[in-house]
């Protein structure tokens, strides 16, 4: 059994509190920059209301949005099999203590256990590495944005143009429903399941960092330009701030496939990570997996 300096359960409560009450700084800056260039009056008022709300939530230590989402966990580094139980215990405690809204229900009966648990919940992705630390990341994912997810199994002949069309349509067809200005997570390649997972993981990357891959970096820039000249605007009420960023991850795929997935993050794309090493716990709000 791996001994950690702080119980994982406590770290998970801290992570959920941090993610839900404090917007990552890179997203805060992007909102401020957007308010600076936005000329549409309604759009400007929406951005102002968002920034006010963010400040108040952080100040009083309450969740910035009532949809505290389904927390998606990523565990990377060294860990053993007991970590899942600790994460579940932390989530149940955080639901009462912060509090979070109990969101999980049986998909058919719609019965709500009241503790954000239930079969298959919470979702935990494991990434074992040879590192001598344990990194736990949480992405609380609200349903407004999650419900707009799209997977397209494009044809290889559709190429880059087909990918761009697919992403632009996914974001614009979603309209005001996912709470724009959004962060658009895109997965390109892999198999269908991996493609959707990559689109979500892309939302974890700080939006003020360039993509390491020059081609993806260019694509992100082009999509950002196109989407912000669409006129959709904050909350779908018009304006020039439709997205705060586009983030893309890719993996190799079958020679006969071109999978593309879009997973939208609302303006309140909440994330927090804890790096647990022998010497202590370090918290942050943006990682690359």
């Amino acid at each position, binding site marked *: 059994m791996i001994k950690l300096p702080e119980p994982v359960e406590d770290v998970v409560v801290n992570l959920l509190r941090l993610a839900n009450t404090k917007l990552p700084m890179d997203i805060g800056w992007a909102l401020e920059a957007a308010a600076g260039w936005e000329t549409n009056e*309604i759009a400007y008022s929406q951005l102002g209301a968002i920034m006010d709300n963010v400040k108040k*939530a952080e100040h009083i230590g309450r969740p910035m949005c009532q949809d505290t989402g389904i927390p998606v966990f990523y565990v990377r580094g060294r860990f053993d099999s007991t970590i899942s139980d600790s994460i579940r215990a932390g989530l149940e405690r955080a639901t009462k203590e912060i509090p979070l809204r109990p969101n999980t229900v049986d998909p058919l009966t719609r019965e709500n256990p009241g503790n954000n648990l239930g079969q298959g919940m919470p979702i935990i992705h494991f990434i074992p590495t040879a590192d001598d630390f344990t990194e736990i990341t949480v992405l609380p994912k609200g349903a407004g944005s999650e419900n707009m997810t799209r997977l397209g199994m494009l044809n290889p002949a559709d190429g880059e143009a087909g990918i761009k069309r697919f992403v*632009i349509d996914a974001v*614009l067809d979603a309209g005001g429903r996912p709470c724009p200005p959004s962060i658009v997570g895109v997965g390109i390649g892999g198999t269908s399941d991996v493609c959707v997972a990559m689109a979500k993981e892309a939302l974890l990357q700080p939006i003020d960092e360039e993509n390491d891959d020059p081609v993806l970096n260019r694509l992100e820039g082009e999509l950002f330009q*196109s989407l912000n000249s669409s*006129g959709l*605007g*904050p909350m*779908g009420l*018009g304006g020039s701030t439709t997205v705060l960023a586009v983030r893309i991850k890719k993996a190799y795929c079958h020679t006969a496939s071109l999978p593309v997935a879009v997973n939208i993050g609302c303006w309140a794309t909440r994330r927090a990570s804890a790096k647990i090493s022998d010497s202590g716990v370090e918290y942050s709000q943006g990682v690359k997996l």
Partner: protein
Amino acid sequence: MITLPLDEKTARSLKLGETVYLSGPVVTGRDEMHLRAMSLPDESIPDDLKGAVLFHCGPIMSRRDDGSWAVIAAGPTTSARMNSVEAGFIRRFGIRAIIGKGGMSEEVSEAMRETGCVYLAATGGAAISLAEGLSKCKGCEWEDLGMAEAMWRFDTSRFGPFIVAMDSEGGSLYRNVTESLVRDY
């Protein structure tokens, strides 16, 4: 500033794009609350649903030691999920205003035009600011539906701001934006 309950004349006087604040009784409701209300006979429907201002919201609530409820966070949910039931709901209960985000369908817009109802856009995710306007929780109906889905009753005071995004003449800011969207592939 509009004092609730809202009458038809006042609802019809609200202009597209106008900013409003509300004071008075408001009820919450989303997917399951709509289904529950529509499945019940008239005599089982709570009086305060009739002619109500309906807030598409599943708040975070916390019970105080004395048994009363405190609101922690309460922003709008995506209204389009209720598109398939809302036109019938508006007609049956005479809903005068819906507070939500993202807008609703043409079918709902038509029911709003017919009955004199408006759609008020709240800023999605502004759950702390909006909760400040919910001055008192007067309990809930259908608690078995769960915290997010129950019908919560609130007294509101300077609740807002909201933008009149669909008026009672069939106008819609969402339609205007959608029709002029530029798809730069």
